[in-house]
């Protein structure tokens, strides 16, 4: 479905992606993980054609996507920050996307699912962050696309909506979608992901199933496995200014330390 060959991307002198080779053939949920600045978002945006690769080749369903836009018909994308034109109502926004993309089958069901009915006539500028994220989710899932890309899908959601979202993602998997998720919430990865792709400094550092990940690093949870993955990579993590080592509690996501390296 998606195949990436020797993908490089630099922003000025900043080399973000350094030769990514990836292919997703089978449907399933793939968690794209990595510390801040490791190139997750750049990778996703390259697939969407929002970031133009410096070198390399990207194919969606055997079609090279360079200078193409029709292929995006096959991709549903949930952006990280949900911001819409302030003065349009939710209804108008949904109509706009339908106007651009064609009719949607699932729209009404999704609006019910996320209880957006009462907000349809509200202006987007007046909605809370969580409600806006729900609108974002409806926009993403209202088209039946073989590829779904979710960038931090849980941001700002209340527990009820979170459960609904997880069910929705699982349903999408069951009907044969390829779903890419980036997140910092490890419990979500543990619950949903079939496969993990771990990016570190522009390279793919690890790719495999959750079980392989845990077995490789002899850990019982994804969180700990990733912590020891990072530790092996770096030797021991040092993050205080005078070089003292410190204990990283398991509940802190190790990626938060990498930036201060």
């Amino acid at each position, binding site marked *: 479905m998606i195949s990436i060959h020797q993908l490089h991307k630099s922003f000025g002198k900043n080399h973000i992606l350094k030769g990514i080779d990836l292919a997703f053939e089978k449907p399933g949920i793939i968690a794209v993980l990595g510390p801040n600045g490791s190139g997750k978002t750049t990778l996703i945006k390259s697939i*969407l054609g*929002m970031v133009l690769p410096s070198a390399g080749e990207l194919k969606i369903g055997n079609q090279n996507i360079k200078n193409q836009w029709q292929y995006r018909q096959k991709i549903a994308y949930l*952006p990280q920050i949900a911001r819409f034109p302030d003065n*349009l109502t939710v209804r108008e926004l949904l109509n706009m996307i339908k106007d*651009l993309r*064609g*009719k949607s*089958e699932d729209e009404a069901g999704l609006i019910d699912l996320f209880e957006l009915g009462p907000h349809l006539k509200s202006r987007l500028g007046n909605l809370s962050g969580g409600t806006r994220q729900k609108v974002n989710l409806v926009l993403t899932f209202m088209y*039946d696309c073989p590829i779904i890309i979710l960038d931090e899908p849980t941001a700002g959601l209340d527990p009820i909506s979170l459960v609904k979202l997880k069910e929705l993602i699982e349903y999408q998997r069951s009907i044969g979608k390829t779903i890419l998720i980036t997140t910092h919430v490890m419990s979500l990865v543990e619950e949903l992901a079939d496969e993990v792709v771990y990016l570190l400094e522009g390279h793919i550092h690890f790719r495999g199933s959750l079980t392989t990940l845990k077995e490789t690093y002899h850990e019982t949870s994804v969180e700990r496995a990733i912590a020891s993955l990072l530790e092996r990579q770096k030797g021991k993590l040092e993050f205080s200014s005078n070089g003292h080592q410190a204990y990283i509690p398991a509940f802190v996501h190790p990626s938060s330390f990498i930036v201060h390296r």
Partner: protein
Amino acid sequence: MATKPTFQPSFILHHSSFIVDLIVMLKILKYSFYDLIRSRWTYIYCAFYLLFTLSLLWLSNDLSKVVISLMNVVLLLCPLIATMFGVMYYYNSREFTELLLAQPIKRTSIFLGQYLGVAGSLSASWLIGTGVPFILYGVFGSAQAGNFLMLALIGVALSFIFSALAFLIALKNENRIKGFGLAIVVWLFFAVVYDGFLLLALSYFSDYPLEKFSLAASMLNPIDLSRILILLKLDISALMGFTGAVFRKFIGTGMGMAVSVLVLAVWAILPAWGIGRVAMKKDF
């Protein structure tokens, strides 16, 4: 992967052609326009023109004087507001633009649609704000109808030109502060600084024949060009200044107006073309 034959795109999206791009662009334009005409600032802008024109008409019963007074305001205010609105709209809708970029549509359609939405709503404010009082006053029965229409056209042209320049600047600069500052500098340059330099040059080289130079120089500034255009239309030699007189002398009133309108159109089309080009090469 089992591809399900279930996505039901509107059939037109499968055929890439100029017409399709145009339709998509018009759709983006429509929604940007909807968004903007509900913004408080659009109303304030419109209300300002409404009040200003009404009070001018009330204070002076001479329509041509009102047209001249309005001209002096529109030559500075339309570019300024268009510049600010253009930059602000681009930066404020950046995240939403990202959502649009992920849709199966062409980049140029998105940005040109948004630009035309901004320029369109500004023009609407201007046309309503000045048009309603003039029409109520009965401008279309008077001899001033043509002059008023020229003024209206210039307001629209300046809104289109400067919002295009602003969009282009914003698109080129990721940093909001830098983009905003640069756009204001561009406005300041065309509205104030340019004339100063031109005047300096004209007085410094006054021993030389400067007709062609000043003709060319005024073509390079859309605000100057607009001023000349409206003064040619009003046919007030006293206000025309050197360049206006040169225009009339060299190419005649009719031809001078035609040339100015044409150059103004180029001034709107060039940055719009730039928007399309820059958008194609940019990372978001």
